[in-house]
């Protein structure tokens, strides 16, 4: 899975967000490493929608009323959640293999 997609899905995994919310969250999740600029951000969101992994909400949630504006909010779909879990599992497996390998080579030295 692409890195943009992964973090966007991850960002939407706990709550619905709008574009700049996702951007801020992704920045936080990656320790300021990945900043999604508008075209990449919305291009990816559009792509994820086409995959059916997220969907745009018709209106902003009541909790976000004070934010104002007519920003579009996004929510992760069950399919998106499954894709995210699968990716996390794959990463987890990769990380475990890698950790073992590193620990092993560490012993050798």
């Amino acid at each position, binding site marked *: 899975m692409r890195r943009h997609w992964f973090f966007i899905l991850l960002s939407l995994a706990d709550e619905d967000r*709008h*574009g*700049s919310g996702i*951007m801020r969250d992704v920045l936080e999740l990656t320790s300021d490493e990945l*900043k999604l*600029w*508008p*075209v*990449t*951000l*919305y*291009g990816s*969101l*559009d*792509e994820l929608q086409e995959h059916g992994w997220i969907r745009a909400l018709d209106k902003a949630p009541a909790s976000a009323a004070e934010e104002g*504006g*007519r*920003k*579009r909010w996004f929510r992760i779909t069950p399919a998106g959640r499954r894709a995210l879990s699968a990716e996390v599992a794959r990463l987890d497996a990769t990380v475990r293999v890698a950790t073992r390998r590193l620990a092993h080579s560490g012993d050798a030295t």
Partner: protein
Amino acid sequence: MSWSRAVYRALLRLVPTELRELHGDDMEEVFLKELTSARGRGTVAALGVWLSALGDIVRRAPYEHWRRRGRRRPKEHRVHSFFSDLRFAVRSFARQPGATALIIVTLALAVAANTAVFTLLDGLFFRPFPFSEPSRLVYLNEKAPRWNLDFTGINYTDFAMWRTRARAFDSMALWSDESVNLSDGSNPERIDAARVTYDMPTVLRIHPVLGRMFTREEDRPKGPPVVAIGEALWKERFGASPDVLGKTLRINSTMYTIIGVLPREAEFPHGAKLWLPFDGDPNSTDNSYSYDGIGRLKPGVTVAQAATDLIAAHGPIWLKSDTSHFVSPRVDLLHDRFVANFRVIGRALGAGALLVLLIACANVASAMLARAIFRRREVGIRCALGASGSRVTRQLLTESLALAAIAAIAGVLIGHWGLKLLLASNSDLVPKWATLAVGVRTMLFSIVIMGTTTVLFGLVPALQLGRQDPGEALGAGGTRATGSRRDRRLLDSLVIAEIGLAVVLLAGGGLLVRAYANLRRIDPGFRPAGTLEFRVALPSAKYKNAIPQMAFYRTLIDRLHAIPGVDHASMITCPPLGCHWGSFYKAEGSSPLAQNEVDPVTLTRYASAEYFATMGLEFVHGRPYRETEGAVRTGYRPVVINEEFARHMWPTVADPTGKRIGSRGDTSSNWTTVVGVVKDVKHYGLARPMIPGLYFPLTRIDTASDFGSFAFTVHTPGNPVSLFPAIRAAVRALDPELPVFALKTMQTALDESFAQARTVALSLAAFAAIALTLAIGGIYAVLSYVVGRRRHEIGIRMALGAQSGQVLRMVVRQGLQLVSIGLLIGLPLALLSARLLSSLLVGVTASDPWTYAAVVVVLTATTALAAWIPARRAAHVEPKIALNESS
């Protein structure tokens, strides 16, 4: 909206429309939020945001486009709607094929006129000469105000002095246009050539295509016989073979070795096909002034500085030989010198073509408007069904665009073809060095023209209709007069503009045609009917001096006399229209020339005694000299002078026969006696004034001098063209190596001399005719429209007892009102613009009342006719039908 938002929004045009439409606002918000927070951290941070955002667009936008490739676009998308607009346009054109074709033809003709004229002007004025840094190139010559000469031609000694002493020039060269006999045994040919100094290519910055140019060492008196040939000759005679170097060419009966091939640009300015070394002698005392010079200024040197520099360089000449400062050097920008003759013509044609285009635009605009007004109901329905005003405007603009595109393509093709035809029929219209080609520039020009016409004739009706209120439009779709005042006013002003512009063109065309007619009526001073001329040039290798030369010529004259049908045959050094040889004379007993006294140059010719009869010259006083009269040993020297010479030398004497003249510099007492005075011949062209001139008998010719070329004139009571083969045969019989050249009837020579005037007059007359047709069409269209709209009202009037004659008069009067306003606007404009033509107007002033009166009469009469047809239709309105229609 802040400027940063505007800029970012503009940048977002780079991403696919779908994405922009969906998330554009959000993207802007995100960007602005970033920018605002970054601004708090300083300008550098803000700049960083801009850069990142730009990088984001540049990196991601291509992917977004790629991702959507092949996808069907949503319905109301712009590009899609353009094609649907186009399909719609084609359908609506197909419904009215006649009207559509008319619009296309109108526009195409206008574009064609503009393409042709633009190509012409581009080649002449806008495109510099085909040399590097042409603005540094200057034309060198000499002037002699006291001889009444603006250009005397350069003397070689003077040139040699300039070349060594002048400081302001990178280089300078001298050339002399000549034509040479080129023969390879069987078919002699006369071709244009030039004698040039070795540095000509250096000045022009051109390089031989093959081989080399002759060197300084080869360009000297009695230098080796080497020749550089042009690309054209190389291809024609040698099939562009690289082995041409070292081959020989027989030029003027001498073998020349080919050492190089020069590119096409070297043909400047008069189309030389080969170049011979000038072989000038700087120490010669020959004081003939006849060559042309060209120089390349050092960078940053102005023409004025160059002139001052050249005059300083000329100093020793004034000290040594020309102590009374008769002749001084002159420097002109090359472009000015060679384009000056075409400037007025270019301006006239350019303005004419532009006016035609404007009129065509106004015409098409009114046609489109009238069409659009009749489509009001359709547009109203579309608006009512939800099409936006801008959507309707766009639809109409697309229609205009489609029409303009078709017209532009057709116009460029017709224009290109028309120009070719024009140039083929009239080779003197443009100089040989001008390259006329429909290239990128012409295409660009046509695209601009097309864009302009689209806007001019498409925008007005489009905006007019796009603005309308659907309810009103649906109501007004019929024949009722409501809501039509605005349309009517617009139509009226378009037609008035057309008429106003047509007046300008008609007046200009009329004046030029009148001038041309006047030109044709000018008496050339000789009898063109039945007279022909041709030239023969004897190579000096074979005919060393005047003794064998004159012997050849006399034999040829005898042979010419023997041709059946020839009643006169004669020879002259310099026949009318296209030749000059000047000298200076004094009257016996006149006081020596005072300081600064004018001493006009005299056209000097040697002619056989029969020349006067051959050309039908009219004697005002005295008689022609006799064939045998004037032989040197008799001591009696007769001369025939022209009226201008008599006027200049003896202003107070009625009949100067018996008076004596001598050469200006001659101090001996060998006087020449005037035996006759002939009427002035328009030697330099019908529109040019004649200078003093005289004719010496052939007996006067010094046998040691060189008379390598003579012109022959022959008269026949029949058709002179029928003599051509016999004349060629007569020359061939005497010397098969000699080409006969410049063989033409005097009528042809005369026609050629005003070919340019004819072309300009005919072009503008054609423009004027198009303008008139379009203006009449405009009047007709508007009145038809008005009558159509007012059927109801007319029906009421007639029901209330109006006579059909009254109705007829009412409609025609409306047409004439439009014409009067158009004339009121157009006439002052025409008077102003005709002044620009004044240098082309022969025998007619720019404010010639007859021309303007004719314009008024023609326009009024034709528009009255154009108004008649719709007026008759109105007069035949059946009140009952008209009244019923409106319900």
